[in-house]
């Protein structure tokens, strides 16, 4: 019955009720959407930073031509370090390209050697870490990916001539052209196209190009392939920490594991780690402030509006009391009225928030990558919006009762 009366009161007071609903919608939408945006941004940036800056690299300077490989035992040692989530042992080797022309007229020194690896498989670069910013991943074709640094040397969709030196013991692959230089060294030579580009990213600096492993095995033959990119061990280790806060400690422990291996050093993106740690500590307060400010603004606004409105038609309350209604019952009627307005407002605010969230997306340029952060509406904010509407309705109803009692029955009736 109370709900029914409240609904009729709302219909009768259409304009005021709509005004309250409108303002409640603005307030509640702000309450739902602002912290949701903050949380999504924080989550998105944090997630990105955690997924990038939690990587460390144990790399070989290549002074020995990547001849010595670190055994599997070391991989196990790294993985046993507390806080290490994943270890990727990767085999890095030089890939050589003829800068101009081909082997027949190759002047000495016109060979470009770049550190390279293959994609996927044991010793290969994990596909999960590859972000293509342009072009595509090479699929069973004469192609390779370049990184941001190498893209200065290799143009996209351009075909280059690659050469891999053969030792006297190596099998000669049947399907590949062989060339001999003036010193009598033999090479496997084939054409390959730069089909995709990884953006410049500090974590990928050590790998200039990435080959399609199937294609390369076919060109090099099993024996040469295994010598360069296949087999046990690794010459580059990518280590993923569970948490960005652990990176520094883990890097130090890994460095001590590699103390006995010359030419290896542990690097990680200190700037990103420092920035992320600073971001986390600084933005946490900021986002909390945004949330609290939103809450305070909404509650104040809703309370002010409903308080101002509670003065309207207060003679109705006086009338009902003279007809035998208790003040408690009158309060209940006011409460139901505000609850109805609150529920309608929350429902509309939810829909509006979802629409706004679906339309907003933030994009950031980070290390050449476009980081897109989608805005997700937090169920917690939705639930708290309902709680706010209920609480405010209750408080306003009781406040209205207090105000009316203070005015007195006689004066309330004079307001007619």
């Amino acid at each position, binding site marked *: 019955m109370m709900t029914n009366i409240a609904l009729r009161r709302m219909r009768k007071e259409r304009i005021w009720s709509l005004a309250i609903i409108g303002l409640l919608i603005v307030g509640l939408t702000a309450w739902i959407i602002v912290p949701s945006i903050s949380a999504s941004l924080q989550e998105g940036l944090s997630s990105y930073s955690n997924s990038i800056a939690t990587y460390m690299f144990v790399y070989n300077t290549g002074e020995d031509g990547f001849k010595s490989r670190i055994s599997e035992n070391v991989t196990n040692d790294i993985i046993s370090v507390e806080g290490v989530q994943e270890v990727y042992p990767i085999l890095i080797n030089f890939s050589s390209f003829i800068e101009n022309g081909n082997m027949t007229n190759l002047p000495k020194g016109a060979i470009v050697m770049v550190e390279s690896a293959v994609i996927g498989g044991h010793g290969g670069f994990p596909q999960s870490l590859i972000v293509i910013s342009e072009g595509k991943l090479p699929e069973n074709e004469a192609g390779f990916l370049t990184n941001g640094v190498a893209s200065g040397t290799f143009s996209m969709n351009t075909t280059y001539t690659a050469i891999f030196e053969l030792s006297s013991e190596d099998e000669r692959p049947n399907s590949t052209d062989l060339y001999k230089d003036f010193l009598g060294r033999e090479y496997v030579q084939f054409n390959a196209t730069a089909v995709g580009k990884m953006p410049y990213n500090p974590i990928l600096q050590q790998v200039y190009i990435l080959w399609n492993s199937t294609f390369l095995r076919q060109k090099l033959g099993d024996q040469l392939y295994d010598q360069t990119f296949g087999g046990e061990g690794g010459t580059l280790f990518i280590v993923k920490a569970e948490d960005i806060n652990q990176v520094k400690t883990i890097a130090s422990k890994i460095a001590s594991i590699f103390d006995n291996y010359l030419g290896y050093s542990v690097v990680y993106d200190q700037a990103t780690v420092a920035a992320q740690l600073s971001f986390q500590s600084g933005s946490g307060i900021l986002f909390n402030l945004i949330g609290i400010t939103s809450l305070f603004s909404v509650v104040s606004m809703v309370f002010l509006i409903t308080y101002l409105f509670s003065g309207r038609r207060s003679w109705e309350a006086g009338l009902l009391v003279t*007809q035998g209604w208790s003040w408690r019952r009158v309060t209940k009627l006011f409460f139901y009225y505000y609850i109805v307005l609150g529920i309608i407002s929350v429902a509309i605010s939810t829909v509006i928030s979802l629409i706004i969230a679906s339309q907003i997306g933030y994009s950031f340029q980070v290390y050449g990558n476009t980081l897109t952060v989608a805005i997700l509406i937090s169920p917690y904010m939705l639930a708290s919006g309902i709680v706010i509407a209920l609480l405010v309705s209750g408080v306003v109803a009781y406040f209205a009762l207090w105000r009316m009692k203070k005015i007195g029955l006689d004066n309330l009736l004079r307001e007619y």
Partner: protein
Amino acid sequence: MIKLQSISKSYGSIKVLEDFTFGFKAGDTVCILGHSGSGKSTLLKLIALITKPDRGSLTIDGRNINGLNEAELEELRREKIAYSFQEPLLIPYMTALENLTEVIEVQNGKAVELLSQLGLSNRLNHQPSKMSVGEKKRVDIARAVLKKSVLLVVDEPLSSLDPATSLKVMALLRKHAEAGGIVVYSSVEPSDARFAGRVINMSIICAQANNSVT
């Protein structure tokens, strides 16, 4: 039984009642007569527990209202008192019928019967905004009558009513008194006092109250 003992009531510097004593008993029909501003409505509001006296005591069935808390006053209003306003006060978003059935929670049939008796059968489902002042006045009086309280307080019941309807309304009030209730009503017209068993002339009381100041 309602007793007003040495009641005084003022609004600012204007004294409305000064040391006023009166008693109402079952079966009484009392007319409070007086010109506009003489304090008729104030006296009615005092006995309907809408306002409180500045001094003196008001007892209803032996209970002095000065010693009662708000919950006990609410109970008295609910159980013992029915009040009809000088200017008809109806809930604007309820129909004439709903202003009876939902405000005082009386049975639909009884409400329809009484409203029809007062010539409002074609206004049952009209909201107050669609009704004349006289029609609203009848709905307001019907609400008070149907509440079946011992004390029926009606502020100027005959204003805005035509003579025939006035007779119907006064017949209702008298029936209430005959059934053992107390009817207290006010009027500015001395001729309206003919329906009452006793009359309080507020014009004289008000003048006395203010003379006593000087």
